[in-house]
């Protein structure tokens, strides 16, 4: 039965007549319900109900979390490569003293664009994108809770990223550092449109982050498979939950800061102008109150990738699963109490700074708990040393080293020496690449079969890993020594008399090796996409729900939503427990809402249909932002198109209403 039977209700006018007609159809058994397996009529009905329109329109209107998640991941990766190229240029400039490849203006744009792109356009979005793809599969549902909102978030993110890079291409690239300290980024010293574009990027990328966080939060708490109590939830889902909560509390801080800075620039306010009572340091407080949790938005999903990969390749459940979950939660909380450690060199009271040292050291403890649990899992397991695990091993080496230098810089007196020097550049790259990018590559190798239905090449994977591992250490370890030797950050050149030349050259060679490894990855992906061996549902024989459906999953994820009875659903078979859900409509986009703690089935939910309005709304918002940079009236009149777009987005269509009524039962 196709969804065509519902369109017959289109011409009926009154509610009552509608009901009677709908009941007649249901009574004839024409409404197909799910619960049967693949190959059934229900599957065909689901395919019909969940398919996107073909072509560009379908592309723009889709609400499929997998398509949107893939978009985030691919776009973010493209910008990762772009920002990496900028870094390569910087390394070439710094390879020799008094070098002339790049002048100060371009160099300042390069490191600002590198940092801004990596932090705002690559790292957080790619982690969120992976979560958008994986979380509904991991919790056993059909889509995220607010798919249109996440679709809109992607377009906001894309337009923000494009606007930043267009500015760069037009010699209006942001140039005040990725952290845009005032007064350098303010109206007096931040001349031109450069920092306006940066402020807009913050608004757009953080709006994206917040929208995705609310969506993920809701799907995790309310749409898990029946039986998936919080204790049975996979670690990656816990990490997404904690990260989403952190995002909700932290991102408003940087959005507020960027808007206050923009008001100073456009409307003449005095938030950061000491001459009129403003305070330069508020920027730093607001920025770092966001900025420190931000590195954990990036780090926690990385840790969760590790927690997903290790059990699969050690062939046993995670040792200390509960401890690992509690550690993630503790890290999330503690991360809000560290931000002043970025401000140790300012004139804040010394007593206060000491508190932040204590907190900065404390946050190492939950990470240590996780490290020891992972080692225990490996110790008591049976090791399948495939490429995902190889990247996890690389993560151990690099992240632990980075975490230890983090403890060093957490101490105020020591930080007063190495703050804003290359020691910190080394530290941050060790923790970010070690703690997030290595696990991310591991995750790519792990989940590529699920995303695409093909396996990546192991051989190329190993080459990539070793090149990346060696290249990374050659590039970044010397930077510890450079920092101790007095080399500050963000300098476009240095004199030969400083003696920094040799180590800089070594670092540049390492950077070249890293570039080679990334190239290998791209080759691997392209080749596997077209010619890689096909993957079945569960090539790694893993235990979580995303492996219970074909690779790649159909648009509706599962023909029948699973019911779980243990923490490792694919590794256990509980006798006498239900295995799947039945009774949801297969002819409409229907899903299940469950309770927060124990995932008891509670309410049936009709997912919104694909729509062009999220895309249009995103465009109107971007236009509003740029218009309000130029004039005050732009700030007001520019709100009218978004208002119209959002109303059209919400406005219920006849089809949606009829479907609701057809399936309606009151609570």
């Amino acid at each position: 039965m196709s969804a065509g039977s519902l369109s017959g209700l289109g011409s009926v006018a009154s509610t009552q007549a509608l009901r009677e007609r709908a009941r007649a159809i249901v009574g004839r058994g024409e409404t197909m319900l799910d619960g049967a397996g693949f190959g059934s009529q229900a599957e065909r009905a689901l395919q019909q109900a969940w398919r996107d329109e073909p072509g560009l329109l379908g592309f723009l209107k889709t609400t499929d979390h997998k398509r949107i998640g893939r978009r985030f991941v691919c776009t973010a990766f493209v910008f990762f490569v772009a920002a990496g190229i900028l870094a390569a240029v910087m390394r070439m400039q710094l390879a020799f003293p008094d070098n002339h490849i790049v002048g100060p203006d371009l160099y300042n744009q390069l490191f600002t664009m590198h940092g801004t792109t990596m932090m705002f356009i690559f790292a957080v979005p790619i982690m969120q994108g992976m979560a958008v793809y994986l979380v509904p599969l991991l919790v056993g549902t059909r889509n995220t809770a607010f798919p249109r909102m996440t679709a809109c978030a992607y377009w906001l993110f894309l337009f923000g990223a494009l606007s930043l890079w267009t500015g760069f291409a037009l010699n209006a690239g942001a140039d005040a550092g990725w952290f845009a300290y005032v007064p350098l980024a303010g109206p007096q010293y931040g001349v031109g449109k450069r920092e306006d574009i940066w402020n807009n990027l913050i608004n757009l990328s953080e709006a994206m982050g917040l929208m995705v966080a609310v969506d993920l939060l809701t799907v995790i708490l309310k749409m898990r498979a029946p039986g998936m109590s919080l204790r049975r939830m996979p670690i990656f889902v816990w990490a997404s939950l904690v990260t989403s909560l952190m995002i909700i509390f932290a991102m408003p801080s940087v959005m507020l800061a960027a808007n206050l800075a923009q008001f100073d620039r456009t409307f003449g306010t005095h938030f950061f102008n000491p001459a009129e009572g403003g305070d330069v340091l508020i920027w730093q407080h607001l920025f770092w109150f966001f900025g420190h949790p931000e590195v954990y938005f990036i780090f926690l999903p990385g840790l969760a990738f590790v927690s997903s990969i290790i059990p699969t390749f050690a062939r046993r459940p995670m040792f200390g699963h509960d401890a690992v979950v509690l550690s993630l939660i503790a890290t999330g909380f503690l991360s809000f109490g560290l931000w002043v450690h970025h401000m140790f060199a300012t004139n804040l009271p010394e007593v206060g700074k000491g508190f932040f040292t204590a907190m900065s050291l404390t946050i190492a403890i939950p990470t240590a708990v996780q490290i020891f649990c992972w080692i225990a899992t490996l110790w008591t397991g049976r090791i399948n040393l495939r490429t995902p695990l190889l990247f996890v091993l690389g993560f151990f080496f690099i992240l632990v080293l980075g975490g230890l230098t983090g403890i060093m810089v957490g101490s105020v007196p020591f930080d007063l020496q190495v703050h804003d020097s290359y020691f910190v550049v080394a530290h941050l790259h060790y923790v970010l690449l070690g703690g997030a990018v290595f696990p991310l590559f591991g995750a790519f190798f792990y989940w590529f079969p699920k995303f695409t239905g093909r396996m990546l090449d192991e051989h190329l994977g190993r080459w990539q890993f070793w090149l990346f591992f060696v290249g990374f250490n050659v590039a970044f370890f010397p930077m510890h020594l450079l920092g101790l030797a007095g080399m500050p950050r963000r300098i476009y050149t240095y004199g030969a008399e400083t003696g920094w030349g040799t180590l800089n050259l070594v670092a540049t060679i390492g950077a070249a090796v890293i570039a080679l490894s990334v190239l290998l990855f791209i080759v691997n992906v392209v080749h596997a996409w077209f010619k890689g061996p096909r993957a079945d549902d569960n090539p790694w024989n893993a235990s979580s729900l995303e492996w219970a459906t074909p690779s790649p999953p159909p648009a509706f994820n599962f023909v029948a939503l699973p019911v779980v009875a243990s923490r490792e659903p694919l590794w256990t078979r509980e006798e006498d427990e239900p295995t799947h859900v039945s009774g949801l409509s297969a002819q409409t986009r229907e899903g299940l809402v469950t309770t927060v703690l124990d995932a008891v089935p509670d309410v049936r939910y009709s997912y919104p249909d694909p729509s062009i309005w999220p895309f249009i709304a995103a465009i109107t918002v971007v236009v509003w932002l740029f218009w309000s940079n130029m004039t005050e009236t732009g700030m007001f009149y520019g709100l009218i198109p978004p208002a119209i777009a959002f109303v059209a987005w919400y406005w219920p269509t006849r089809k949606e209403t009829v479907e609701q009524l057809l399936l309606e039962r009151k609570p």
Partner: protein
Amino acid sequence: MIGGVHDVQMPGGAQAQAIVGLWHWLLPICVLVFVAVMIALGLALWRAPRASNDTAPDIASLSKREPKVTRVVIVAVAVSTLLLLVLLAVSVMTDRALAQLPLENALHIELTGYQWWWEARYDDPDPSRMFTTANELHVPVGRPVIVTLVGADVIHSFWVPSLAGKKDLIPGRDTTVSFRADRAGVYRGQCAEFCGYQHAKMALFVIADAPDDYARWADRQRAPAAEPSSDEARRGRDLFLARSCAMCHAINGTSAQARHAPDLTHVASRMTLGAGALENTSSNREAWILDPQQFKPGTNMPPQNIAPQDLAALSAYLASLQ
């Protein structure tokens, strides 16, 4: 050759020394932990049996506890926590040591950070003994120095690694940093907070002299500019005062009293030009005057359209400003 010690691990004064003491705790403990974790990981990998994708998973732990492994993990976490406490204690003690630098008879300097140079005003209870210089500080060995840090335009940071930890110069938030040089020598510092185009070339030199040498230097700095001895130098001075130089630079003892750029009263006595951009020689001074942008692009001083003989005269005058 422009020299100067600039290494965290080569302290020349009490503050930097205290921090090196902390480093001597941080480094060994962190290396120990790193090696221990890597060994544990290596052992785990080495002794665990191999598996393949198809090896059946071992789900015993879902129903049974693992007391031995739990104990080991708890001990490992406890040891880590203990080591963190030790590091916290050492950090706190170092903080106190830094705060307890004796400050009697301190030398007071007010250091103002501009894009991209440093202005240093040596304070004195007797205002007639105050003097101003730029980009190069001399301090007496063994005597504490209290530097008041003023941010004039954007945020800069005062960092001389071999003498002390850094402190930011934040507009609207004046603050101080204290240090004491215990060994004579040249200490190189550099602005450590990104401040725009020429952040890279905003060096600062702190020269620690024996007390007598310092006193001699200070007396010379207090004195107004020497009267030029040659005709060429006198012509140079007239050129200086007539051209735009005097609109930004001050030379005590003349009518040039502007403070938009480094004070040049004793410019020839300094090691470098342009805050460490160039060695301070006669030919470099001439090249700088002709086009500062080629050495420090973006610096606030514009190129000068000046005839060669005028340049020579100006140079002779500047050379006399010892």
